[in-house]
């Protein structure tokens, strides 16, 4: 009796193992493949007539979490897995760069992120108590946006940073416009309009 049971268990084990196929390392030769050329940026969308805002909402990556409407003079760059989207704003022979990124979680909290941005334009860290006075808040389309506007200091004196931090579900989205102070100042209003156009898709 016990013998047959043992046989049975051996059979069962064999069957169980049979179900698990082991993958093997293989090697083969193929015709040489050239590395892909960097992909050219798509042509900017034609400026919409009569309106400062390009009409087409921009859909973002796989998650499709947020969409927005960007001014026509902001040139969209191909997105990467690093960034959800990138825009270049040209003027006075200089360029400002708007980067849009998303991270899981709250990535250290609002204070740490605001201080990281401040560091990028040569400003010192804030304390938790100072934070409220150095940020603005508004709600749009069911989203809560924390907005900062920091003119640069020291080595970054000619720079200005406009930023927004937007919690979306379990992620945090960062919108950062960094560039020459004059150019960023001119685009400030457009940037605020742009922020108001952000919505969940």
């Amino acid at each position, binding site marked *: 009796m016990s013998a047959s049971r043992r046989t049975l268990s051996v059979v069962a084990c064999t069957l169980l193992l049979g179900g698990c196929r082991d993958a093997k390392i293989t090697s083969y030769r193929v015709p040489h493949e050239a590395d892909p050329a960097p992909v050219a940026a798509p042509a900017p969308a034609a400026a919409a*007539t*009569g309106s400062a805002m390009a009409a087409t909402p921009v859909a973002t990556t796989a998650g499709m979490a947020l969409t927005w409407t960007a001014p026509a003079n902001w040139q969209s760059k191909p997105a990467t897995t690093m960034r959800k989207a990138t825009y270049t704003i040209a003027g006075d022979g200089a360029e400002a760069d708007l980067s849009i990124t998303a991270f899981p979680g709250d990535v250290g909290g609002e204070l740490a992120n605001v201080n990281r941005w401040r560091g990028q334009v040569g400003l010192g860290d804030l304390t938790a108590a100072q934070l409220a006075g150095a940020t603005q808040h508004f709600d749009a*389309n*069911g989203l809560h946006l924390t907005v900062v506007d920091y003119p640069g200091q020291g080595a970054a004196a000619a720079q200005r940073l406009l930023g927004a931090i937007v919690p979306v*579900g379990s992620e945090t989205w960062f919108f950062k416009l960094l560039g020459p102070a004059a150019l960023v100042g001119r685009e400030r209003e457009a940037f605020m309009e742009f922020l108001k156009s952000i919505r*969940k898709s």
Partner: protein
Amino acid sequence: MKKHLSLLVLLGALATIVYSLLPTKNPGQFDVNGFGRLPVLLNGRLKPLDTVARTTLLQIQNTQSVRTPDGRSLQPIEWLLDVFFVPELSDSYQVFLIDDPDLLALLNLRRSDGRGNRRFALAQFDKYLGDLSKQANAADNVESAVRTRVQRATVQLRDNVVLYRRIQHSLAAPDLKDYLSDLLNFSAIRTAGAQAEMAKRAGQPSDAAAIEKITTIGMAFQDMSEWANLAAVPPPEGAPDPNAWRTVGAQLMDALGGQALGATPLAFAGLGQTWRNSQPKEFNELVTRIRGSLESRYADAFDRGAVETRFNSAQPFYLGMVLSALAGFLALGSWVGSTQQLQRTAFGVVGLTWLLTTAGILTRMWLEGRPPVTNLYSSALYVGWGAVALCLALEYFYKNAVGSVAAGVIGFVTLLIAHHLSLTGDTMEMMRAVLDSNFWLATHVVAVTTGYSATFLAGFLALIYILRGFFTSSLDKGTADSLNRMVYAIVCFATLFSLVGTVLGGIWADQSWGRFWGWDPKENGALIIVLWNAIILHARWGGMVKARGLMNLAVFGNIVTAWSWFGVNMLGVGLHSYGFTDAAFFWLTTFAASQLAIIALGSLPLTKWRSFRTAAG
């Protein structure tokens, strides 16, 4: 006397059917029916405005009947005309279904303020639209399967209000008082506005009123172009794609940019003016003119539109539901009184009902250019139709009213289910690319759905066996034996169709995306039905079950089929949120529980059954 009575019932049923098919008369002097037959493009299909009116009403208030505050009853198309052209009036019609107590509280509505305690006018709650939209936006962030009851109701009402507003912006600008004259003078208004704006920019004195005027009109046009959901402007003659209809708003925005205004926006503005001002003669002439401009180019759409509006007003499936109930009662009566007469009358009514639903399904097929089953709604129609066809055959052979009772109840229930499924909008939808194959829709889908109807029928016959045998003494040996044979025959039939249908589905999958079987929920549902029917057959062949066991197995087949039909559609985001708040899920579990209760009943020893106890004693 009895014979005459039976003839009278049949004639009555026939007369009702014929009456429903008569062309509808215009309720007043306005040719609203002519207006209702004009085609518009919505959700990819050219459909008559009459269909838009009816499907919208079903969607927002679950019924097609409208009553004005002063008590007049409106046809759907009259309601739609008021929505288009007399918004201040149509906002006061109580056509929004609001049933949720928390939502009513949010909108500060009392039940007693509503028509039938549950239908309210937009004017009654438009003050609170801001709150509604805020709550609905919040609910949007919750996955639909885990929303609470009030969240579902909130989102639903918000969507209904949006739908209503979109239709309202489709043909005319609801916010412009002098819409027609604005359009007639549009070119002058536009030029004056542009000149004034130029002057203003140049710092010269300018006509502020002219700027104001063109701005107001421009904003109204923009609203229309953003909101309109009906595409009512046909492409210009000779355009490459005759289906590239546009919205009036889009046409108006082009006009704002300097292009020609076109005839259609003007014609609809004229209709609006004449409807508002009660000028039937001019209204009718405009309808004729619009019709004339389209009829030769869209002859097919008008032919179908004429049939579709007639089909809409006849409501054959609603009538079928009523007649099914009648047949069911007559047949039940024949058991109580055991009269041949009632039995034959019931059989006649079942036959008439079946012919009526056959005609309804054929009409839908012709309108869509598709096989009978294309979506859940049409599957409900077809399941009922197929089961009733089998019932007719059974009744023809056995003449014991069992077939008629089954036909009455199954016909009624499936048409009721279909009615509830129709509340989500137009039931003739376009087929997604992957499903766009009439050959496979006609073979695989029809075979599988036939399998559903047969499995349900077997289950229902078994139900009759158990209920009649347990609660009454009327299940004599002859009836019991014939029920036994019927269930067996229907299970065989069900096995054939579900098996062939399922395997055909595999072949379709192999043809379309290269794998015969992918274990996806819908495939699994069909497979389970096949397996269950195979179990019934093998259990019977192996002598593992006798009559009573067969009946219990067949009743369980009801649960299996209901799960495959509806349950797999509810497998949404995850088990943790298996849509417990969903009404469909509630009905599915209730149904399953009731069937289990009947199986429990059927498992009680025969000595407890009234029929067999008397037979034994």
